[in-house]
């Protein structure tokens, strides 16, 4: 899935501005970045620095004020909404900050929720989900309701759901927030394993344990929506 020059996630002069006149606020300002395939990068910065907005822009979930996003070398900025959704579904797996799992549904039901627009889970999807649950040590929780899972288990469940579409790019928003050291280590291990399998990962965090980890390929520092070297 690598593009010609190996860059999987690219932003060129990406800007997101909210409001106009006096209420105008730049969430992300003139951000340019290029993340090569098969690498794990971190976007670090304090709360409110624009990390979540940047991930939303890169995933095509937020429309930029100006600038361009390229995934696997393909520009997505001018794409129509339904095609951008299609690209997002097939190229990008997104793990949201609060995991975005439905508490009253079982873990299995949550995993197949993103497949509803495509007509629901097929037998192949069920087999793949079973294998992923097994691999991440979550098989025993398949029928458990999400509200019964711990924070670390929910985080792993969210990652499994993002992996179900076999997307080559994984964007994670604060994947280690509110996790204890043991769970951070476990999640990091999972993410590094995914990187080693060839996936491209970009995670936002204000957690220094993650940002300073020796196996991370690159760190981008975002302050007030502007990328600092």
């Amino acid at each position: 899935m690598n593009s010609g020059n190996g860059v999987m996630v690219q932003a060129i002069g990406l800007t997101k501005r909210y409001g106009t006149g006096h209420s105008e606020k730049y969430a992300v300002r003139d951000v340019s970045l290029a993340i090569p395939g098969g690498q794990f990068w971190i976007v670090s910065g304090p709360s409110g620095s624009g990390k979540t907005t940047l991930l939303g822009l890169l995933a095509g979930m937020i429309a930029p004020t100006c600038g361009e996003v390229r995934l696997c070398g393909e520009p997505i900025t001018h794409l129509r909404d339904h095609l951008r959704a299609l690209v997002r579904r097939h190229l990008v797996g997104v793990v949201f900050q609060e995991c975005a799992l439905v508490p009253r549904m079982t873990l299995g039901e949550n995993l197949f929720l993103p497949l509803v627009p495509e007509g629901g889970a097929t037998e192949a999807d069920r087999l793949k989900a079973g294998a992923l649950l097994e691999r991440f040590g979550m098989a025993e929780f398949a029928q458990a309701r999400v509200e019964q899972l711990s924070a670390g288990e929910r985080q792993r469940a969210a990652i499994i759901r993002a992996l179900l579409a076999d997307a080559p790019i994984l964007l994670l928003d604060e994947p280690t927030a509110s996790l204890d050291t043991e769970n951070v280590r476990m999640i990091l291990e999972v993410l590094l394993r995914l990187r080693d399998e060839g996936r491209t990962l970009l995670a936002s965090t204000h957690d220094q344990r993650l940002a300073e980890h020796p196996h991370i390929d690159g760190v981008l520092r975002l302050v007030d929506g502007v990328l600092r070297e």
Partner: protein
Amino acid sequence: MLTNFLNLWILARVAQAAVAALLCVLGVVLGLRIVMRWQGGQSSEQQLALERQAELVASVMQAVLIFEVLGLGLSVLVADHLVGGIRGAMCAFGVLASTRTGYYSLLTSILTAVACAQWVILHRLDLLAPAPALTRRKFLWLAAVGPLAAADLALVIAFAYELDFKVIASCCSVWIDDSVVKNQAAMLVLSPWWAGGLGLAATVSGLITSAATWRRPRRAIALVAGGLSALTPIGALPAVLGVVAPHVLETPAHLCPFCLFHAQGDYIGWPLFTAIFVGSVTGMGLAVVEVNRAAIGDPAPVVEMQKVLGRWSVVGWACALVCGVAPVVRYWLKSGGVSVFGGL
């Protein structure tokens, strides 16, 4: 007369035309502003904002233009409902003929509806493309639709104003009797064999070329289907007047198309003319889509759109054929094989 505008049917038609024309003109102004600043492919703030504006304006225009197409049906309905107020006018024919602008108004409504339908087809094609590719063409085409909508409104107002409910109008049979005496050439076109043959040939060729495009869209056949679909209504009209109407109304000299909208005509006019309209505009759309193939770039949306349009065109022409042939067959069965034209 100004009091004519108090008639609810007239008021409805004028209101429909006024709202459509006003929004069309607004759409033209906004569209031209977008076109003037458009820089396709750029990711500047202005361009991204224009893309969102263009989508919004196009979505609104799509609804407006569908509304305008429905206005064509309303024109016939209004003229038909005014029959009771104008003595001597037995159907919409007499109402429209009682003013100088009646038929010009109807003709403009037909042209506006066709132009609007083609714009909607262009817009649907653009929506199938991965990124906006037809924005310029769409809004330039809208610039042509806008004046048509304005002309439609002006003629609807003129027609409504000119209506005189005190006048004694002529009905369709008076016009036909007059034509028989004065215009033998015109009546020759309406002779059953000639008109029937031409109508059948035109409709079947429209159907076959549309079906061919639907099955396997290719440039040449799509253009031919588009051209034939534009001409077929002209070829089918004499058949409707000269063959279908006499069989439906069971009178050899009753050639009025408007009487087909009445109970005495089994309301066959509604499905018949709707089918001709659908067959024609979707068939013309095949050529419109083909002409824009290069601008779209990706062949997949073009093929997808041509398959949809081809299918609808086939459905339209097939329904038109059924609505045209069924009354003839029914009459023949009912009369035990005796022709409605007697000596034929």
